[in-house]
């Protein structure tokens, strides 16, 4: 009994080791993926309160069952074209990035994907989908399209946001002075 159990456990672990579960989502025509373990939940149509004097990609904050969490517009953050299709209720991926719970606005959430770890390739040197490669963890060919795995630790670089905010405040001062 015990042996059978152990064996099954080992198989499971092995399977877990070479299979990776991803939450897939769309931004424009591109498909992205994020490790399911980082995804806390996915919400839709949450009212977002804008926070003044922040970098443009910080959409604001939202109330997630009593907790106030920042929301970042992923398109703006990645400098992708921002002509968002399908207005109405936005999708917000709530991710836990090293303890910082943060929401990311995406166009649509598709499905949970299982891919082989071996199938993930390092980010190519050339620019993928108009994306700076520093934010790309890897790419994976899933039949018809290319799935881009994002490195959210780089995307939520707090120091960078703080720096951007100061520049923003400086710009503010300029516009304030001009006005």
């Amino acid at each position, binding site marked *: 009994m015990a042996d059978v159990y152990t064996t099954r456990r080992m198989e499971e672990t092995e399977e877990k080791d070479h299979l990776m579960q991803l939450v897939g989502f769309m931004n424009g025509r591109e498909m992205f993926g994020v490790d399911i373990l980082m995804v806390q939940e996915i919400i839709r149509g949450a009212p977002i*309160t804008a926070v003044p004097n922040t970098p443009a990609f910080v959409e*604001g*904050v939202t*109330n997630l069952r*009593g907790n106030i*969490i920042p929301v970042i517009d992923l398109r703006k953050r990645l400098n992708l074209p921002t002509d968002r299709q399908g207005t109405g209720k936005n999708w917000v991926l709530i991710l836990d990035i090293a303890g910082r719970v943060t929401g990311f606005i995406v166009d649509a959430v598709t499905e949970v994907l299982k891919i082989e770890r071996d199938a993930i390739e390092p980010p190519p040197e050339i620019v993928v989908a108009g994306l700076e490669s520093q934010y790309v963890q890897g790419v994976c060919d899933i039949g018809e399209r290319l799935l881009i795995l994002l490195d959210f630790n780089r995307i939520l670089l707090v120091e960078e946001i703080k720096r951007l905010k100061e520049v923003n405040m*400086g710009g503010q001062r300029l516009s304030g002075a001009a006005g």
Partner: protein
Amino acid sequence: MIELDPSLISDFVVEAGEHLEEMESMLLRLAEDPANRDLFNAIFRPVHTIKGASQFMGLVRIAALSHKLEDLLDLLRQGKRPSSPGIVETLIVARDHLAMLVADLARSQTEETPVDHLIARLERIIEGREEVEDVEEPVEPVEPVESATLGVETPKPPSTVPPAPEMGTYEEEYDKELFAIFIEQLREKLAFLSAQAQRFATAPDQFEVLEQCLDSIRSLDSSANYMGYQALSLLYEQWCDAILAAQQAVALSQPVSMGFMETYVERVIQFFPQHGDRLPEGGEPPVARPVARTPAPEIAQDLLPKESLEDQAPPAPLGKPPVSAVEPAPAQPGPAVVERPEEPAAGPAWETEGERQKAEPSQEAGERVLKKSVRVDAHKIDILMNQVGELIVDRSYFFQLFNEMRNLQQYLKVNAGLDPKDMKLIRAFTYRFGEAIVSLSRTSNELQEGVMKVRMLPIAQLFNRYPRLIHDLTRGTNKQVQLEIRGEETELDRMIIEEISDPLIHLIRNAVDHGFETVAERKRLDKPPTGTLLLEAYHESNHIVIEMTDDGRGMNPELIKSKALEKGLFSREELERMSARELLRLIMTPGFSTAAEVTNTSGRGVGMDVVKKNIEKLNGTIDIESTIGLQTRIRLKIPLTLAIISALMVRVGDNLFTVPLANVEETLRIFAKDITTVEGTEVIHLRGRTTPIFRLSVLFDIPSNQREAGKFFVVIVNAGLRKLGLVVDELLGQEEVVIKPLVDYLQEKSGLSGATIIGDGRVSLILDVYELANIAMTRQVARYQELSLGRRKAAGEKTSYPATGRPN
């Protein structure tokens, strides 16, 4: 022992814990007023309850101990046995043992702490076999077990207190066992002290060496006090003073001779002629026999600080032991001790009586708080809180439905052509629906408020722990400190209470150890012999302020300056530029010194950088004020994160902002013609004063939409010394809101102090008016400079990037 139901045990632990807390606060009052029979009566009740519950549960030791305790208390409250400070100490030790047993239960579900000796001791007191007892309570209350054993065989008739602290000798007069322990400790400590004196010259950290010596001597002093050796205690006190003086010298980088150490060792040994050979025996550390290298006693006298010698001349006041230390019970107004404020027999005549009565109500307030408290898992409250938030969101949904219902009613009336009878039914329903929603709304509001308040606890929860701390800290030292507490009903979030507990203990320990002078020193300085430590809490805007003021020796900025210079932390020029206040803050610089070094130059410093770090972690600030020789005040200001504040809700464009009401002076409605522009800044004249106004829409770079053009709403806010107006589109009214923190990168330097969730579940940002004032003023300066630059340059030409326009 019978198998116990774990849930019963945990109930018992919680209940007993409350009774024990109650007992502790009453016992401490009793320590000041040992003859108060009402207090015995009051303590009797919780003990009785604990006894009953523990017997029921089959908790043998708790039952036995509380039973004996109850018996003794019964005798005391009936006056059949005279009370004495010694007995009160025994009661405290017994309470501690009960607490330890309860802690054992909570941990392992069994009773582990041995209590037999204590029970035996209580029996002896009950039977009147043990007349006088002074329980050696350990400085560390964690292990009173050994010490209680130590105290068991301590019959000490009052007559053994030496009448005058003149040089004499001591030998094993009454209790061989105890005396042996005493001598053993003396031998160890003296060996240690000699060793320290020898390694002093080469020690890397001389201050620390002296600090360790101080600790040893104080511990010896407390033993001497315990034995009733007042002359010896006096000698120790002088020794401490000498070391303190040496520390001062070290701090000032003056040469220090440690010759006096051996002199003092020698003089201590002289007290015990019969044991002189036993004393300096080489123990663990390699010690040279002090006798060999000790100068003659006459020289030793010269080496003593002058004050110490003067102290010796009028020995009576110095011989006075510290508060709650050794007390010659049965408390007859003996001739030897007259000035003891806590002398029970002299109760009514004392001037402190008035003060005591003043203190009375607050103490009772503290007790009430304890009695009413219920222990709830904090996580449950958090969950409840969030659910209430969800309820509020649902409620606004109902409001929306109600509006739709009214529209439907209107629609039916106009389009469906219902006859008035049918229409009446629908109208009646809509009306009742409306009523129900109003009621729901009221109830949910109250629920929300109630749940929010559950998170808040009076700071009495924290302050009530400190009388005991001070009792323990001063016991066995030559200091007397009384704690005064104000504002203990001030509420703050329970999380913060936990977070500031350690820093406060640290500060209190510092004050007692270093801030206060010894009784002798205070008398010499013409100060009341008992120092006062004032702990005060109050709300200030959305902060709680906790002030700790001691009337001790204060801190000397000059000494701190020289120390900082010596440590190479700052250059002489930098230090010269610093104000006294800035200099005081230096003691909180990490690496300023290993604690002890500042400790004694200034009387402060042990781990102050750690305290500062802890307070700053809570977004709090710490401020130090000190007047040399008079007092030191430490002021902690901590935001009430998650606390409820009253706030004014305002609208700018589509955004709702929350202004803490504490910052709001008044609100005005003004017209465009009321605004004038001075040097690029808009101002209004408010009762003859020019007040700058800033448009929130401009500060935050968001669109504004006023209901009526040319009409503005201004919220006059108070930002420290400045008053300024914030222009908003609309005033929405006052609400109670819960402050929630924003993520750090959004909150820092943003003019926002957090956020709150409003009725419909949306988030409203809370304005930090101090920071906003800073931002506004900075921009004002920038704008002014740009304006003047612009005037000089050709019109229309772009000015440089505003970074150059920033002040500083």
